[in-house]
C-alpha cells in the first residue's frame, strides 16, 4: 500500500486570507468570540511568533496586539474542504478526509499512471495551487501514520514532498519528538512520556515493548508500534449520503424561544416540501445550533419515516429545552435530513383526514403564489419568511 498524505498548512487561515487578501499583511488567528475562547487555528507567521492552537485568545491579544483575529466560519470552511476533496479525488478513487485540509489517498496501483510517486505528488501539489490557490505538502509512505508525519515534517522544511521508503520508517522517526506520534494527543500518554523522559521517539524505540505495555497498557503497546512506524489501518473513504439541508442565520441574534421555534418550524416546512417534491421521506434529522459565542449544539434525532411536518416538528420540539439549553442568543440554525428515495413508510389501513392531506395543497399554493402566500400559525414569528 502506498499512501499520500495531503496537508494544507493552516487551512483555515489560508481560506480566510483568500477571502480577504488584506489579512496577508498581519499574522492571523481564528478563534470564537466567547469570553474564554482559545485559538482554533494560527497562520504560519503567527506560529512563528509563538502562537499555537489552544492558546487563550485574551492572552494572544494582550501579548501580540498586532495579530488579526477572525471568527470561524464553518460553512465556508466546509465548502472549501469539499472543493479540495473533489480535486484530490481525481488522483485516487480512495480518499479519506482527515479534517480540514488533510486527506489520505491510497495510491496503490496508480504508479504506472504517473511514472513515479514524486511526479504524482508534485502534480497534485501544482493542481491545488493552480485551481484553488492553496499550497500543500505531501507525505508519501506505506501507511497512513508515517505519511502523516512525513507531510508534517516536510512542512517545517518548506519542501513540497517527503517520501519514506519501506523499511526506513524507524530510522525516519527516531530523531523526531514524541509529539509527532498520534498518542501525544492523549493527555495521559503525554504526561507519562514527560515523566519517563521519553520525549523523543528514539528513546521509546530503545525500550523493550513489554515495558511500554507495563507503563501505559494497550496505549503503550500501540505507541511502541507507532514509534517503529507500524500502522495497519487502511485508507477508508467516508460513506456518502444524499441529504437535504436547510440553514438560517438570525438577523439579529435572538434568545426568544418563540422566534427560534417558529423559525425552526419554517425550516421544517421547507424541508418537508422538498421531500414531498422528491417523493422521498426521512427517518432522522440532524440539527445544529450555534450560539452567539460560537458554542455549538448538535442533535441527531430518529423517528418513523415521514415526509410530513407534524412528525418532524414533534420530534424536534420534544426536547427543545434540552438542545437549546443556554440563555445566550442563537445565531445560526441548520437542519438536515437524509432523503430515503424508496418510501418505507407503512401505509395506514384507514387513512386519516387532516394534516397529511393538507400539506400537498399548501405546497401547491406556495408554488403558485409564492412562499409567503400561506403559512401555519406556529411559523408566524419565524424569521425565514
Amino acid at each position, binding site marked *: 500500500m502506498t499512501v499520500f498524505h495531503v496537508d494544507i498548512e493552516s487551512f483555515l487561515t489560508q481560506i480566510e486570507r483568500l477571502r480577504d487578501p488584506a489579512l496577508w499583511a498581519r499574522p492571523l488567528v481564528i478563534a470564537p*468570540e466567547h*469570553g474564554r475562547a482559545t485559538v482554533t487555528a494560527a497562520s504560519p507567521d503567527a506560529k512563528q511568533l509563538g502562537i499555537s492552537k489552544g492558546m487563550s485568545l485574551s492572552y494572544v491579544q494582550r501579548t501580540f496586539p498586532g495579530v488579526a483575529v477572525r471568527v470561524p466560519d464553518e460553512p465556508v470552511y466546509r465548502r472549501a474542504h469539499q472543493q479540495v476533496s473533489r480535486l484530490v479525488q481525481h488522483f485516487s478513487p480512495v480518499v479519506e478526509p482527515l479534517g480540514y485540509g488533510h486527506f489520505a489517498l491510497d495510491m496503490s496501483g496508480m504508479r504506472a499512471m504517473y511514472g513515479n510517486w514524486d511526479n504524482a505528488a508534485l502534480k497534485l501539489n501544482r493542481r491545488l495551487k493552480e485551481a484553488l490557490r492553496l499550497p500543500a505538502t505531501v507525505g508519501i509512505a506505506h501507511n497512513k501514520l508515517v505519511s502523516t508525519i512525513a507531510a508534517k515534517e516536510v512542512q517545517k522544511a518548506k519542501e513540497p514532498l517527503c517520501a519514506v521508503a519501506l523499511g526506513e520508517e524507524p530510522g525516519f522517526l527516531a530523531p523526531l519528538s514524541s509529539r509527532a506520534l498520534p498518542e501525544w494527543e492523549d493527555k495521559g500518554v503525554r504526561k507519562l512520556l514527560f*515523566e519517563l523522559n521519553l520525549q523523543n521517539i528514539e528513546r521509546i524505540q530503545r525500550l523493550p515493548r513489554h515495558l511500554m505495555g507495563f507503563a501505559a497498557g494497550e496505549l503503550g503497546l500501540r505507541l511502541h508500534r507507532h514509534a517503529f512506524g507500524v500502522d495497519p489501518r487502511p485508507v477508508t473513504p467516508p460513506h456518502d449520503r444524499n441529504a437535504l439541508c436547510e440553514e438560517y442565520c438570525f438577523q439579529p441574534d435572538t*434568545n426568544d424561544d418563540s422566534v427560534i421555534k417558529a423559525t425552526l418550524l419554517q425550516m421544517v416546512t421547507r424541508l418537508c416540501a422538498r421531500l414531498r417534491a422528491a417523493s422521498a421521506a426521512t427517518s432522522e434529522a440532524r440539527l445544529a445550533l450555534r450560539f*452567539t459565542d460560537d458554542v455549538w449544539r448538535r442533535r441527531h434525532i430518529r423517528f418513523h419515516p415521514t415526509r410530513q411536518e407534524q412528525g418532524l416538528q414533534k420530534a424536534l420540539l420534544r426536547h427543545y429545552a434540552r438542545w437549546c439549553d443556554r440563555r445566550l*442568543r442563537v445565531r445560526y440554525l441548520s437542519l438536515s435530513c437524509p432523503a430515503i428515495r424508496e418510501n418505507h413508510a407503512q401505509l395506514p389501513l384507514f387513512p386519516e383526514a387532516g394534516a397529511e392531506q393538507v400539506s400537498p395543497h399548501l405546497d401547491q399554493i406556495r408554488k403558485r403564489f409564492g412562499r409567503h402566500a400561506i403559512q401555519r400559525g406556529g411559523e408566524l414569528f419565524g424569521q425565514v419568511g
Partner: protein
Amino acid sequence: MATGAAAGTRFQHIHIHSQYSLMWGTAPIEGLAKVLRARGQKVFPLSDRNGLYGLVEHLQVCRDYDLRPVVGCELVANGEWAHCLVKTREGYHNLCTMLTQAYRDPRWSPARALRDLHEGLIVITNCDAVLEETHATAEVYADLWPGDLKGARRCRERWGVPLVANAHAYTVTPEAHHLHRVLRAIDTNSKLSRLDPDAVMPAASYLASADEMIARFETEPKALRATHEILEACTYVPTIGALIFPPSRFDDHQKVLRDKTYAGLMRRYGQLTPQICERADRELDMIRRKGFSNCFLVIEDVVGRFSLTCGRGSAAASIVSYALGITHVDPIKHNLFFERFLNPGRVDPPDIDIDFAWDERDRVRDYLWQRYGGEHIAMVCNHNRLQPRSAMRELAKVYGLDAREIEKVSHDLVKHKRARDKKRALDLADPWPEIVQLARRLEGVPRHISVHCGGVVITPDPITHHCPLRPMPIGYDVVPWDKDGVEDYGFVKLDFLGNRSLAVIRDCLASVRENYRVDMDYASLNPVDDPRTSELIRSGNTMGCFYVESPATRQLLQKVRMGDFETLVAVSSIIRPAANKVTGEWIKRHRWMCDEQGRRRPDRKPNWRPIHPDFEATLDESHGLMIYQEDVTRTAMAVAGFSAAEGDVLRKIISKKHKQKVLADYREKFVAGCIKHGLDQARADTIWQMMMSFAGYSFCKPHSASYAMVSFKSAFLKFHYPAEFMAAVISNQGGFYSAYAYLSHARRLGLTVVPPEINGSRVAYHGYRGTIRIGFMQIKGIPQALRERIVAVRQDGPYVDLNDFLQRVRPPLEACKRLILAGCFDVLEPERNRPTLIWRALHWFACHQRQHEDLWDAPVRAEELPEMEDYPAATKLALERRLLGFLVSLHPLHLYKEVLAKVARIRAADIAGYVGRKVCLAGWLITGKTVTTKEDEAMSFLTFEDESDVFETVLFPRAYAQYAPLLDRAHAYLVQGTVCDEMGAVSVTIEALVRL
C-alpha cells in the same frame, strides 16, 4: 366609582412586597412609604416573601414618614402559601418560629405550622391545605386578588371564610412588571421567553390606587372593608433601639468585672498607682452605667481560652480591656482616650472587635455556640446587593448577550464615565440602552444573604423572640439583618475576626521555642523599646510584618525615617487612600518637630501657619492635621462648638455610605459654628474637606495603636529570628506578596532556602537558624491528609529509600510522582534520577495494587526496569515552576540572561545613586496596585525585583494606558524610566516597559 381621599378610606393595601422579597419585589421600602403617604394611607403593612430581612428598615422608614407599621410575611413552601399579618407579640414570636422552621426543614409545610402557631396572626390564603388546618381555629380570610378570583370565591363557599381584597403588590406601577420579570429571570437563571409561569407574578400585582382596587372589586364591598378591619387589628410593632446585651453568668457581674480588672492591672503594671486606679474606676463606672459589664466578661472568657488575640477598634482605648487581656496596648502610656469607646452622650452601642489567629476562628465560634446554645447566639448576615456592574452583567445575560460583548460594553461605559468630554453620548446598540436603563433601577436590590465574616450577637432570651434564624451552609445560624440593621435593632454586636499575622507570630514563637529554647509570651512581649526593631521599621524593611509590609507603607516609613511606636501608630492610620493629601504635609511637620527616635524636639516650634489657634491646640499631637477618626470629633467640638455626642455622630456619619442628606445638615451646622468661633467661610470649608478624607475607610487611634503593637511584635521577630519568622509568614499564606517574593526577600536577608526533601520537610515551611526549608504544602497536588501522614509516619524513623516510603506511607500514585518530580527524593536516592524513580514507583504500584498478587508473577521484574537519562536542566526548572509555583534553584531573571546581556542596565541595589537620571532595569514583577487619580484615570504602583533588590516604580496614567495590557504578575520586564527621590523614598517613574 369612588375617587380620591374618599376611596382611600374604603380600601387599604394589606399585602405589599419590598425588595426584601429577595429577587421578587422591585420597590425599595422608602419608595413604598412615599407612595403610600402620597395616597393618604396611614398604615404601611409589609409582607415580604419568606423573610423579615427588611423589618428594621421598615420600622425606621415608618417612623420617618409618620406611618404605622404592620409586620407581616408571605409564607410559601412546598406548594402551600399563606399571608400572615402580626396582631400581637405572640403572633410575632409565632411568625419568627415558623420562619426559623421553614429555613431549617426543606419539607416544612405552612399548613401544619399554622395549625399550631396561628395565635396572634391573621392568615390570608386561598390554599386549601392551609384553610383545612386553620379555618376552624384561626382568624382566616380568603385572598381575593386579581390573580385568583375564582379560587377566593371557591374558598369562601367551601370553608366559610370571609374575603379580603388584595393586590399582592410586588411592584409600585404596572410598568415595573417587566423589572419583576427580569428579576425572576436572573434568579432562576432563565430568559424572559422561558420563565416558568409559577415563578412570576401576574401583571396586575402592583400597588394599584384605591380607586382602581375599588373598581376591581366593586361587587365585593365586604372584602374591601375587611382591609380596614385587618389593619385596625394589627397593632403590634416590635421595639427597636433598646440595647440587648449578652446574658450574665454571674450574680454580681459588676463585682466580678471589677475584681478581674484589678487582678489584671496588677499583672500588667506590677503595682497600682493612683493614676491607674482612677482611670480604672472611671472606666468601670462608665461601663456599669452603660450596661457593658457582661460584654467585657463574655469577651474576656473567650479571649482567655485562645493563645493570641488582638482587640481592635475603639475598645483598645480601655484600660479595662488591657487589664482583661483583650488588648495589649497600655492606654495610659500611649495616651488613648477611653471616651472614644464609651461616653455619657453616646447612644449607639460601640463595636467590640477581637482578632484571633485565622485558623482558630472556627474553634472560637464552636466554643461560643457550645457555651450559649444555638437559641441564644447567631451570626450577623450580609445583604448582598446588585451593584451597577453586576446588575448590568446579569441583565445582559437574561437578554442572551455573551460574556465578551458584556465585558466590552462594560469597559466602554467605564471609559465613557472617565472621559472628560461627557457630552458625547455613548452610542450603544440594541438592547444595551434598555439594559443600562434597567440596571440603574436594579442597583442596590438585595440579591441574597451571606454570612458576615465575624459578627456575632448573643441574647439572654431566645433570639427567635426577636427575629427568625436562618441556618447557613457554614453550619451556623444568622439573624436576617446586616450589621447596621442589627445595631439599629439594638443587638450588641461582637466581632470575632480572623487575622493571619497572629498565626504568623504564634508559629514563629513556637519555632523559636523549639530552635533556641527561648520561651516568649505573646501578651507580655513588648518590643517597643528595642532599638534594633525600631531600626528595622525606620528603614522600611518590613516585608512580612503585619500591616506595614505593603510597598506604600514601606515607602512612607522610609520617608518618615523614624521607627518609634508613636510614629508607627500615626503611620498605620495615615496610610489610607483618602489621606494622601495630608500625608506629605504630616511627614514634613513630623520630621521638623521630632528627632530620629520620634521624640519631640523641645527647641522647635511649628513652622507652618495655623488655621485656627483652637484647631492647632486640639491637634497638637498630630501637628495640626487630622489623622485619626476622633480628630473629627475633637475638631468639631473645638472649632464649631459641637457637643461630644454631636461630634461623635458626625464622625460616624462621615465614615458611612449613603450619608449625603444627613451630612448636608451637619455641614451647615459646622460652618455656622466655625463662623461663630471666628473662622471665615473659606477656612471652615478647608477644615470640612479635611474631615471628608475620613469617609469610608479610616482608623481611630486606639485601633491604630493596637495594630501597631502587632506590627512591632512582627518586626521584632523578623529582626531577631528571620528564618523562623519568614517561614511562618509564608506558611500562613495570604500576605501582601507571593511566596516567591517572600523567599527572594529571605535570600536577600542572608537566609538559605532549601527545596523540599522527604526526610527534611514538614507540612508547612520550616525555619531553622538561618535556613528555610520549603514544606510539602508548597507542592501542588499533594492532599493535606497525605502531607500530614508523611510527617506523622516519619516520627517512627526517617525513610530509607523510595520503597520504604511507599511501603510505610502508601500514597496515591499521582501524589508519589509529584513528590519525585519535585525533587523530594533527590537526597535520599542520589544514585537514581527522577525518571528512573518514576519507573520504580510505577513498578511498586503495579505489584501492590493487584488483588491476587500471590497467584501471578509480577508483570515486570524489578531488575528489568530501565535506568533512564535524567531530565535536562531546563526541564527541572520547568518542574520547579510547575510544582512549586516558582523557581528555587535560581533567580527567574537568569532565564533571560542572553537577552539581558545585551542590555545596559543597572542593579536595583544601586538605584539610589542614579536619582534624577534615566535608567534601565530588569525586573520580575512581584506585586502591583492600580488606583484612579482625581481625574478618574487609572495608574499603577508596581514592585519589581532583580537579583540584587526590590525596586518600586510608578506607572502614570499616560504610560499606564500604553503598557497596562502587558502587565502580568510573575513575569520579567525591562523597565526604563527616571529615578525619583521623594523625601528619601526612591522609585522609578516608568517611561517604557518591555515584556521579556
